[in-house]
């Protein structure tokens, strides 16, 4: 490209960037830099950060396990009701996360549709556990993965799968050794979005999994609670979360998206 970017595009782009960056600048400027050291040293912060990273990563893995096959089926298999399923998959996007948490409680809570049987048969209750956090995050983040991967599946050249079949590859081998590598960029991008969404998850987590330091209190929950009591601390926590995620995103996205 030797043509310079037109101002009619650069101006709104700058405006958009400012709109995204200004609030962050606000956070940075209002951060209590002088007391930052002592605030960061509190062990709960480290606990919450660790829990956030672990649960977001587990949620992403769970999403990969369920979401990639789901996206593949949506992108490749022509079944009746596909449009409906596709719309259903986007529902957790629209559902306010708090409602998502309520819905999860109704389904997997101690008295929920399935939760009742989990409790009765296996003695497993999900609310108030780290597993509950992972589930809540996965529920909210799954659509991101599915939408991303489905796009990649649709864009991938079907004929490579034909080629694999003529070489004697079973459907599963074809998926594993041909389709998956071909859609890897889409899966990577989807996983990054998914992880980011899981990391920031608040509403569904607090509603479904509750809030207990070290067990279910992730960073966003810690931020929320701190917000009521000590807004300065909340800003510090937010900045920690941001820094960690920007580092991870810049690292991963640069690699996967390009």
């Amino acid at each position, binding site marked *: 490209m030797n043509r310079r970017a037109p101002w009619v595009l650069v101006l709104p782009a700058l405006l958009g960037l400012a709109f995204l960056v200004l609030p962050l600048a606000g956070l940075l400027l209002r951060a209590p830099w002088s007391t930052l050291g002592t605030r960061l040293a509190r062990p709960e912060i480290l606990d919450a950060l660790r829990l956030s990273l672990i649960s977001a990563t587990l949620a992403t893995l769970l999403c990969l396990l369920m979401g990639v096959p789901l996206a593949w089926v949506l992108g490749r298999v022509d079944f009746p009701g596909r449009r409906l399923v596709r719309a259903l998959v986007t529902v957790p996007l629209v559902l306010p996360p708090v409602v998502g948490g309520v819905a999860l409680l109704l389904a997997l809570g101690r008295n929920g549709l399935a939760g009742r049987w989990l409790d009765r048969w296996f003695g497993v209750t999900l609310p108030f556990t780290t597993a509950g956090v992972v589930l809540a995050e996965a529920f909210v983040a799954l659509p991101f993965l599915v939408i991303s991967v489905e796009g990649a599946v649709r864009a991938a050249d079907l004929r490579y799968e034909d080629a694999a*079949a*003529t*070489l*004697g*590859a079973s459907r599963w*081998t074809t998926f594993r050794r041909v389709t998956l590598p071909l859609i890897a960029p889409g899966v990577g991008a989807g996983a990054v979005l998914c992880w980011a969404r899981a990391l920031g998850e608040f509403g569904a987590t607090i509603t479904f999994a509750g809030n207990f330091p070290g067990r279910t209190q992730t960073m966003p929950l810690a931020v929320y609670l701190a917000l009521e009591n000590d807004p300065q601390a909340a800003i510090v926590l937010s900045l920690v979360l941001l820094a960690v995620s920007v580092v991870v995103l810049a690292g991963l996205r640069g690699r996967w998206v390009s």
Partner: protein
Amino acid sequence: MGFVIDARLVVRRGDFTLDLALTAAPGEVVALLGPNGAGKTTALRALAGLTPLSEGHIRVDGEPWHDRPAERRPVGVVFQDYLLFPHLSALENVAFGPRCHGVRRREARRLAAEWLDRVGLADQAARKPRTLSGGQAQRVALARALAVGPRLLLLDEPLSALDAHTRPAVRARLRRHLADFDGAAVLVTHDPLDAMALADRLVVIENGGVVQEGTPAHVARHPRTDYVARLVGLNLYRGTAHGHSVTLAGDAVTFNAAESLDGEVFLAFPPSAVALFRTRPDGSPRNLWHATVAGLEPHADQIRVHLEDPVHAAADVTPAALAELRLAEGDRVWAAVKAAETHAYPA
């Protein structure tokens, strides 16, 4: 000697119906020729199991194949743009098939290396497909198809992705590999040259059905449709013969042919047999007609002159001759063909 393959392929797709009987003996290379949309690719995909048959059967070495899925047919396919897996190296591409057939990794890689060596690419084993030239990619695709030890090799326009430059060398190599292959091979192509060079037998299809079949030489000399005639570079007409004299449909012209026949016939002669004159020649050619120049165009190192009115015909002349004749589009010329070079055969 039995056939490797004996098939009747019927595939229906909306308006289009492919209905094709196909056999091939061991070691035989059958070329499937035909215009765009004739159903060549469809036939190949049906043989490979990628498109289900609507009807018919496929028997390979006597075994029924038509109800097996693609992955259980010992078939090798070289796709039109090769479809080498972009994320695997040349070696891994070739080893893919053997791995799928349960060969251990080491052994599969050894086998793949051997195949790459056989197609002359031993030193390109580690390269990714996107960094290979067209000709190299084609050879990797061939090695990949052959590495599973197929009984049937299917090639869909294996040379069409190559530029005019590298084509002859790759074609020559492919011919050698096909000669070494002891199963049957079916080759789809648009290009008469490829077909003539590589195939033992041509099957020409148009509109889903066979219109002509035979050895390359025979088909080249006795085209039965306009498509084939254009393909092999002959002027072709249909007419009625009374002895040596052939009257073309529409009574436009009467030709004298080398053969003596009666009834409906095809009449064919090569463009190089047509001589052009500014004024009516006095000479031996028995077939003489007055025509209009419709177009001029270089053809190999000659100039091809398209004539029309009363019949379409192509004539090849040297640039020197053309300069002498000072022909331009729209000019009227006399065209002559010696009876000895016009060839008639029953329609």
